């Protein structure tokens, strides 16, 4: 056991400041353990959002020494001996209190996009899909909605004005997931991502991929293929003509 200095931002929408805590740290602990100890012993009203403490629910997102992270998956041995640990709330979303932010932006964006469209000709129990075909979408369904990708994305991180037209990486992988779903009945997922979700704002800096605790290849496997296919469809005269004549199917394979 050793003692460590934690600097935790405390405040609300009207403002706040860092509070400093000297707190015990035991072998094998993660940042969230130490935050809980601060709560139990020094600041019972310290606001922190968490649920599972096992990296499965995506609730305890915060910025630890400047890096967007899940507090439950940030082990204390990551820090050098004696290095203070500074925790601030996610910067992209409004503060509710202390380390808790208002993440309703993400739910509003999810609320705006069309959900899975079941095929009209298949009854429950009749769905047949190959493992290799569902795996592409399954990668994106690993998302635990921690919103670290949304928080780190520079399109909205310091640009409140971009929030209305831009849904962010979390919703791009949702669009890609539905686009690649073998039985989704809609055929306009890519166009919707471009036109309604603001896919065009993304300039592929891969910051979202870097912070994803589920290691989803957001940029390479979702955003880039979606961009390529939108571009391909829009500017290839044959595809354009085909779209005018036939309803476009979902059979073409993704880039890469």
């Amino acid at each position, binding site marked *: 056991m050793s003692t460590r200095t934690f600097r935790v931002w405390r405040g609300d929408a*009207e403002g706040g400041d860092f509070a400093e805590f000297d707190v015990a740290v035991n072998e*094998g602990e993660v940042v969230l353990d130490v935050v809980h100890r601060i709560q139990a012993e020094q600041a*019972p009203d310290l606001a922190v959002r968490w649920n599972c403490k096992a990296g499965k629910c995506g609730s305890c997102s915060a910025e630890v020494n400047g890096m967007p992270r899940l507090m439950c998956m940030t082990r204390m041995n990551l820090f050098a001996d004696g290095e203070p640990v500074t925790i601030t709330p996610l910067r992209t979303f409004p503060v509710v209190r202390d380390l808790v932010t208002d993440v309703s932006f993400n739910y509003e964006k999810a609320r705006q996009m069309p*959900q*899975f469209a079941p095929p009209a000709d298949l009854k429950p129990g009749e*769905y047949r899909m*190959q493992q290799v075909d569902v795996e592409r979408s399954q990668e994106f369904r690993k998302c635990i909605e921690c919103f670290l990708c949304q928080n780190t994305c520079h399109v909205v991180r310091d640009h409140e004005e971009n929030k209305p037209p831009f849904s962010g990486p979390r919703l791009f992988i949702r669009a890609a997931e539905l686009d690649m779903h073998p039985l989704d009945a809609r055929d306009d997922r890519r166009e919707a991502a471009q036109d309604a979700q603001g896919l065009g704002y993304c300039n592929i800096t891969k910051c979202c991929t870097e912070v994803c605790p589920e290691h989803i290849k957001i940029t390479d496997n979702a955003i880039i293929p979606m961009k390529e296919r939108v571009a391909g469809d829009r500017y290839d005269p044959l595809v354009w003509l085909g779209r005018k004549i036939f309803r476009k199917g979902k059979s073409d394979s993704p880039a890469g």
Partner: protein
Amino acid sequence: MSDHRNDANPGAADVEHLACDVLVIGAGGAGLRAAVEARLAGKSVIVISKSLFGKAHTVMAEGGAAAAMGNVNANDNWQVHFRDTMRGGKFLNNYRMAEIHAQEAPDRIWELETYGALFDRTADGRISQRNFGGHEYPRLAHVGDRTGLELIRTLQQKLVSLQQDDEEAGEPAAKLQVIDETTITELFVEQGAVKGAFGYRRGTGAFMAISAPAIVLATGGIGRSFKVTSNSWEYTGDGHALALRAGASLINMEFIQFHPTGMVWPPSVRGILVTESVRGDGGVLKNAEGKRFMFDYIPEVFKAQYADNPEEADRWYTDPDANRRPPELLPRDEVARAINSEVKAGRGSEHGGVYLDIASRRSAEYITERLPSMYHQFKELADVDITAEPMEVGPTCHYIMGGVEVDAETAASKVTGLYAAGEVSGGMHGSNRLGGNSLSDLLVFGKRAGEFAAEHAAVTEPPKLGDDEIAAAQADALRPFANDGENPYALQAAMQEVNGRLVGIIRRAGELEEALTELAALKPRIDNVTAAGGRAYNPGWHLALDLRNMYLCSVATAMAALERDESRGGHTREDAPGMDPQWRRVNLVASLDGGELALARQDVPSMTPELLGLFETSELSKYMTPEEYRSTEAEDA
């Protein structure tokens, strides 16, 4: 910081008033499935979520959802599933719930595909099914080892699609609302019928009163009353306690499932679940001497189904029809007790568990493909590479079989208009739940609860809430700010310590009496618990309010555990080993009588002759009194 919301007496104007046909308390799998059904029935629905939408404890379910679809082994059907469920629960289950569950689970799973769920597939493109403890055939629909996440996300997205349908149809947004980060502290009851609920929004501390003629409890379990638990912070027995205070009864509260394999090292992750799929996919348990010890722990009642030697056990993975199952896949209560015995006998691992070894039995590629989150969890939290070395595991408080006594068909409690589904309900799993039967349970009975709550709302006048009852609930919720007692975290730790030490996996009468005395001593301290700070997002205040729920559930468990002097499923009495056929016929029912918990005995419903006929008489004779199983012999003759 402003503490303007911290008025001791803020008055009725401070309370937001809402109304709906069906109020669903809890936004895990059962709650969301109930909400879907009630909305599809045309009712207005409010879902109260203690956490953010989509974060409920269901996300932590790993292995899968049990449903006898017969995709992997065509011999499977609902009768086999029913039989396995009854065996797992040691025949204490409400047989009708187990029957409905086994019959309806496949439809509930297939339906999820039409909502967009993407389960792993078989070679012919159907939903793949995996082996699990206590299930005779591969039966669990799964998505790697993150099945619960798939379930919750699918239902979450289905709710959104229903909201979008409403929007297109010009319905008001209030037809289906999810109110997140909100806790219900009280139900309002008049003349034996529910009429609404009171709660607070975590973010602001603002109060709300919701009037509703039908309420579905779907609040999950009680695991946070134990220190070593796989459960998330929300699991404070809220629904169990709300039901008790509303006049409903709880059954089988003595039966708590300690999952055999929780992480044991490092200390900060102690209790986090290691999915049973590790064993279903080939992992074995070894003690410090390297011995595969489960062969020494096959109980008499299971000898026909489980292999007694490693050669046969290993052949089972490739030829399940010609060989008996490995004993690592015995029901959870058996495996947990075996691990406990090995550790007690001094054959435990370095940190007080045993070893779970898949590294020496399967390739690294197989392990990372089948068990991606386990690989990830051990790598990141314990610095252990499970493809190269064994895991250290030990029992962790995982699930409560006991819960609100409900009608099998309708999920209705004894209180008119009050329904319960999922972990908060009791009866379905008897004395021990099989892995995989929880995700299917919450779909099957979540749907039924939503359906019958909607039906009840259709024939009931919209209720009115009185100012007095709202003011009383508000005063209760604010009391911790005026108290001058202890810190809620210290009190929770004290309660966890009592439960862990005296009401854990192995119990004794003297210790249970001691537990009741110690819990009683905690009561005035809990009544006087103090919240510091203001009302906006104040976890100390939230915990102060949850404590009384944890307290009620802990006392109900200790009382029932003391009363039942036999060992069965998730209740092991060292001073009363073995199952007693007389006790098999008895459910212990807890209710509140003048503010005090009281316990009563009640008959377990008798299985129909048709269902009894699914078992060999020789098997029934191991569980039942002669007159019970002989009645089937008469039928056979």
